[in-house]
């Protein structure tokens, strides 16, 4: 059974607020790079970039991080392939990197993502923005920008839908078999 907990309007507002907070935290966006975690994190990063562009008339580079094969939501799984960054037109060295993902859960994806970023260069800083923080962390990782905190049971699932791939914007809690 699916229950919508964030609708399209609320999702847009959350991304808007995260964008403002990124500006606030980084004292401007001059040195900023966004890296979205595939698949939905990339679209969220694009949307944040588009918001920054609307506000500041500046294009912030967006990279894509592929964590396929790396399952955050299954306990004890180890990555079968290494996470890798693609489509980034600029180096990350000395940049303020903001990593963007849809859901923060155990923290393992993010650790892998940080490793991948470090492999590419030496950023000035790495921040984490997530649309949903559902709790149950297994690593000492904490998001800097959170759209919505949604406490969940272990057997529940959070499903983020974005218009670009899913035809709608929403966050749903899925319980039982779907």
């Amino acid at each position, binding site marked *: 059974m699916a229950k919508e907990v964030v609708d399209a309007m609320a999702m*847009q507002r959350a991304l808007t607020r995260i964008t403002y907070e990124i500006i606030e935290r980084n004292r401007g966006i001059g040195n900023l790079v966004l890296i979205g975690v*595939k*698949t939905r994190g*990339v*679209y969220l990063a*694009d*949307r944040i*970039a*588009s918001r920054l*562009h*609307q506000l500041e008339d500046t*294009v912030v*580079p*967006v*990279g*894509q991080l592929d964590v*396929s094969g790396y399952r955050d939501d299954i306990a004890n799984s180890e990555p079968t392939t290494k996470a890798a960054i*693609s*489509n*980034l*037109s600029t180096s990350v060295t000395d940049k303020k990197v903001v990593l963007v993902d849809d859901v923060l859960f155990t923290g393992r994806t993010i650790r892998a993502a940080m490793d991948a970023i470090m492999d590419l260069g030496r950023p000035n800083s790495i921040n984490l923005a997530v649309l949903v923080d559902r709790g149950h962390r297994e690593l000492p990782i904490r998001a800097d920008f959170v759209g919505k905190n949604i406490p969940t049971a272990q057997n529940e699932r959070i499903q983020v839908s*974005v*218009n*670009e791939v899913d*035809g*709608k*914007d929403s966050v749903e809690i899925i319980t039982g078999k779907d």
Partner: protein
Amino acid sequence: MAEETSQGAQTTAQLAAFNQAEHSAEKTASVHQRLLVIGDGPNDFGHETELDAATYQTLSVLHKHNYDTVYLNNNPFSFSMENACGATVIMGDPSDAATVRQVIESEHITSIVPTVGGLTAMRTVEELIAHDYLDDKHINVLGMPLTTVRLINNPALMNQTLRDLGEPVITSQVASTTSDAFDIARQVGFPVIVKSVAPRGEGDRVLAENADQLDVALSAAFERSRTRQVIVDQSIVGLKEVSFEVLRDARGTELLLGAMEDMDPVGIHAADSIEVTPIQTLTDREYQKLRQAAFRVARRLHIVGVMHVQFALDPVLDNYFIMKVNPYYDRVSAMLSRASGYPIALVAANVMTGISLPEVRLSSRFAKRTALIEPVLDHVVVRFPIFAFDEAERRGVKVDRQLTTVQKSVGATLGIGRSLEEAMLKAMRAAHYHNRDFAFDALSKLSDNDLIQQLIHPHDNRMMLLLEAIRRGYQSDELAELTQIDEFYFHKLRNIYNLEVDIAAHAGSEEWLQRAKYYGFSDGLIAQLWQTNADAVMNQAHTAGIIPTYKTVEPTAGEFSEVVPTFYSTYELENESRPLADNTALVVTTGAFRLGDGAAGEYVMSTVISELHQQGIKTVVVNNNPNAISLIPQLTDKQYLEPQEISDILSIIDLEHPRWVFVPGNRLKLIGALRLRHINVVVINKDKASKAAQDGDQFLTRVVYHTNKIGVADPVEIAQTAYHAPTHRLVVDNQGVPGIDAEPGSMRQSGFYNTLFSAFSGHSRMVTTALPFPEFGLLNKGTGINWIRMLVRALLDKTTAADRRDFSQGPFITATRGDVEMVDIPVDLDTRWRANLPLAGAQFKLGAKINVKFPYEFKIIN
């Protein structure tokens, strides 16, 4: 997991694209499309020329944006088919799915525009969806997704969707048998509303208050249903009925175009109600709640264009129900567009093609970005329905005058003023009551018992009835309880009544004359109260300098300097209307539709206007029909939304000093009054359908053009037709009827005439009359020559060599494929009006269609 191929958004363009994707999944139009605009088909109940008007505006927008467009229609009175703004016009039945499929294939259509074809077009599209036809052909529908088209055609599904959205809807259940329907009625309790699932024609809602009425309602509803199913609804009779019209673009920007309230409660069909805009009796909270609800529905249905939502509001319990969702152009759109001057059809057409609201460019008449302003009014607009029951009763047919959930009105007028009283009186006056009906004492003989009965079960004359009740001392709260009409209106009606008494008591008083005019009393009404004649009142007002001031109809309530050339009269300080140039023609168009040839009249007069414009003449139109195509600002240089009584026309003439005044030939009193004042009247001659036609006779005609000015034989025959009810045919061969020997007396002015040869008299009896307006539909559509424009040129002494050639070709041989037929469509007046005898005859017709064996490309020489 499949590898994603999406590219990083590194460029501004891509960013914009992503931005777009977030806001909406709705597709924007690509440039390589070929669009099919589905036509409105024949005129019918509740279908005047508003769709033709919207179509013309839509075609002009598509043309401006270089869309390759095809327009399919078979309405002989379609102005758009003859003025298609570069679109390919196909003559064919737009309500026939097979025809539409044929056109889609032969014309390589990629997208369909269903929003200016009314509910019929939505049904046709649904039929196309049904067999996955559109999906298979990769054809999309502009304005809404296919799922929404489906919802529009399936009330049960729509109700479920609205309920899922959290919107209150009426408890509504589908029944396939009479016994199922009774089960539902027993469960929700009487009264209930019965309607057909997938009805043929416009769906009707019938109120049943008891088992007998339910029996009757069910058999009619099952009969009408294409699926043999009916819907039984819980009744909400007595609630306040309001309509909100919203606009939404592909990026999700939503704005409120306007809202109307019905004076009459739910239980009287909205088209039969007296409607008022702006909203008078809602608090801001109620207003904003409904605005928000309308937006939610538009968002859920992914509307890209206009949508009208009809609500039933219970102000006591502070809740509402959604009664109707119309995501296409309709009479509410037309009315609100006329009321505010906001060009709804133009903006909707832009938005439908994917242009966002901030990007919509209007003509320079409007302030920049007016398209984005939510219209506000500084005037009141009242829409007044027209009933034509008298036509039936004059022919000895009894009809049921009680107003119900079934539409009985055949037309409407609007009145604009600066107070409700003024707007109301102007609307009633525009309705052209016989003086007898409009007299304040018209109902003085009604018994008290009948009065109360009619207060509870109102008839067409309820305004007079309410005034009579006030005269008899009923209090506002009593009346509100009996009628379920908001007390506010009784205070206003009482004000009208008090004015009437005071005016009557001050015969000849200049002060009271001023006051009477200020509140919208006409010369005729004042004359009644003063026991004099209208001319005397008009002269007194003129002498005293009590003359109308014209104010602009524009959407910003005076905040911006919009130079919209649309005006209404009132009696205040400032006149905003400046006369146009010397070379101006005033055109009096059709006014409210009654029965018969309303649509044909609008078609003819709009063509007259268009030709005048073509000839470089400035045109001013005066009309009061909210659905009239002649009122759209694209056709004329200036519009007066005014009643058409003699004094109204004279006031406009005093201001504009037109060189010509064009008047349809049936306005004999007006023509006489203008000629008396040496005004240059040009008559577009016409006659009602002939007596023979009314009696269902069969006859042949010769259509002739009479003039002595253009250097052709006079009169000259241009066509022959044959009539065999309900079919009019253009005839190719000479039918062997006697030659023309028209009585000169019957052809007083230049124009078209027809001479009838009755079959019953062996084709010998001969009557010559002015050509009835509907026959122009057959002539123009059948021959591909615009005879109306030729007439206008002749009247202006601007006949061309080509005209002369067309005129003198002798008996006309139709240029198109074989015989062309125009068929009067049957009107279900008998059932709507519950007539005791069949209402037959041409004067009870509302529309016609051109019969086409195979769709073909229609071209006309203008």
